[in-house]
């Protein structure tokens, strides 16, 4: 369990994190969303016990990070932003160092290193200095040190930043694979990642908590939730026809691929009605899709202070 109460961090009068209160339970993968400079990293640094809150408190698995810092740090694994490490060390010596400090016995440490090296495909780089590794490997070494002690709480600041699509997918699979009995908090600004990995999302901007919901619930706030997107060879004709369907609020034509999107009035469904209209009029279309809502649009609306 992670619980933050009125968590606040000020730097010279500016509140980087402002009165943040939330609770995360085991099994939850919490996505921390927000524009750059929103206070995501600062919040994570406080949860990981690196920074001391100006006001408020963080409780990790029953340990207050200020009153019992060592106990709290023991149950947490933390990947700082950019996955810093000691560049002159090799992944093997680095993992041994972290494992020893975390109090793993020699036998257990060896077993864990074997497991993690396999999981993260580090076999071929174990004896090269970390500073000579590619960005993808450096990131994986950072993840490896964070999970070496099989922590109950895993906090990762932008774990997939700078990785190629295959590597991103591997890291996401790894996170999903670990999520059953752990609390995982990941920050990201890639919205598709939230949908594929997280079962809960928190949006913060200017240090304040603006939304706390499942990705599906967030998507429901989108103007595009239950919207219907159709591709056709005659977009203008289709647009005019869609305006006549009951429940349609607006119709947009995408300038890029000429697809036509009909947005429903709040709370209405229009998919079936549009289907009937097309059949009745005998319009030719290429395909037609029901939208689940666009997270990026929700994210923009929420963080830029508009309606949410």
């Amino acid at each position: 369990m992670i619980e933050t109460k009125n968590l606040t961090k000020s730097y010279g009068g500016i509140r980087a994190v402002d009165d943040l209160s939330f609770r995360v339970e085991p099994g939850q993968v919490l996505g921390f969303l927000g524009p750059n400079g929103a206070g995501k990293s600062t919040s994570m640094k406080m949860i990981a016990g690196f920074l001391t809150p100006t006001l408020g408190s963080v409780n990790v698995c029953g340990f207050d990070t200020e009153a019992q810092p060592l106990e709290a740090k023991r149950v947490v694994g933390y990947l700082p932003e950019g996955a810093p490490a000691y560049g002159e060390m090799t992944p093997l010596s680095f993992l041994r160092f972290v494992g020893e400090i975390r109090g793993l016995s020699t036998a257990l440490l060896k077993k864990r290193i074997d497991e993690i090296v396999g999981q993260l495909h580090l076999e071929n780089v174990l004896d090269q200095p970390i500073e000579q590794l590619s960005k993808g490997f450096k990131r994986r070494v950072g993840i490896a040190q964070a999970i070496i002690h099989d922590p109950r709480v895993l906090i990762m600041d932008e774990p997939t930043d700078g990785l190629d699509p295959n590597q991103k997918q591997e890291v996401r699979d790894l996170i999903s694979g670990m999520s059953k009995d752990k609390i995982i908090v990941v920050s990201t600004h890639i919205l598709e990642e939230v949908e594929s990995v997280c079962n809960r999302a928190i949006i913060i901007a200017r240090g304040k908590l603006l939304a706390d919901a499942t990705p599906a619930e967030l998507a429901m706030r989108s103007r595009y939730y239950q919207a219907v997107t159709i591709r056709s060879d005659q977009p203008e004709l289709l647009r005019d026809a869609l305006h006549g369907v009951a429940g349609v609020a607006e119709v947009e034509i995408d300038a890029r691929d000429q697809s036509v999107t009909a947005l429903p009035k709040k709370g209405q469904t229009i998919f079936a009605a549009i289907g009937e209209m097309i059949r009745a009029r005998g319009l030719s279309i290429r395909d037609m899709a029901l939208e689940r809502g666009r997270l990026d649009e929700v994210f923009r609306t929420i963080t830029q202070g508009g309606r949410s």
Partner: protein
Amino acid sequence: MNPVRIIFKRELSSFFNTPVAWVFLVIFLFLAGFTTFQIGNFYDANQASLQVFFNFHIWLYLLLMPAIAMRTWAEERNTGSIELLLTLPITLWQAVLGKFLAAWAFAGIALIGTFPIWFTVSFLGDPDHGVIIAGYLGSWLLAGAFLAVSGCMSAITKSQVVAFVLSVVVCLMLILLGFPAALDFFQAFLPQALVDAIASLSLFSHYQSMMKGVIDLRDLIYYGLLGGLFLYATSLIIEIKKGN
């Protein structure tokens, strides 16, 4: 294993994993020999003692100890690895102590590298080994004091160069406090008791007495307090600045 030991081990081996350590050892051994034999005219003095050799250490250390310690914290903050270090289940004090002890041990290894000069003087004459041992101990304590100061300066900045320059300046001031010129300056407007107090803060006077073979408890306490003070200051500075 104790966290201080684990950090000590990591730091010490990281010295030897970078070329800096080897360059440092070569420069130190070369300069220690050069100052003793060329500038100090070791042979002409015709004395079976290492007085000349130890005389120069304070000036060698003035440049070399800041060079050892400059990366201690500046690099951690610059690369962000400090975030990793301080979210491990250790106290800040354990990290400060482990890093300091590693640097100090490294200085000790460099000193051990100068033992051939001890053998030389033993071969050529009949030196007082007690005085030489006290000299080595004093030299090592002096190195520790400089490293504590330099480590503290390294905590102030992310730039190793700035850390180096600050360390040299502060160490130089700690030496010069004991020089007549500085004391005359203070004498102009301070009572004698305070001037004496300032003089007793100087690294120079405490080093001088140990070089002569006198191991005085007061000198040991002085080094202990000075080192402890700067290590404590280091932990305070890191606590304040780590978030920036």
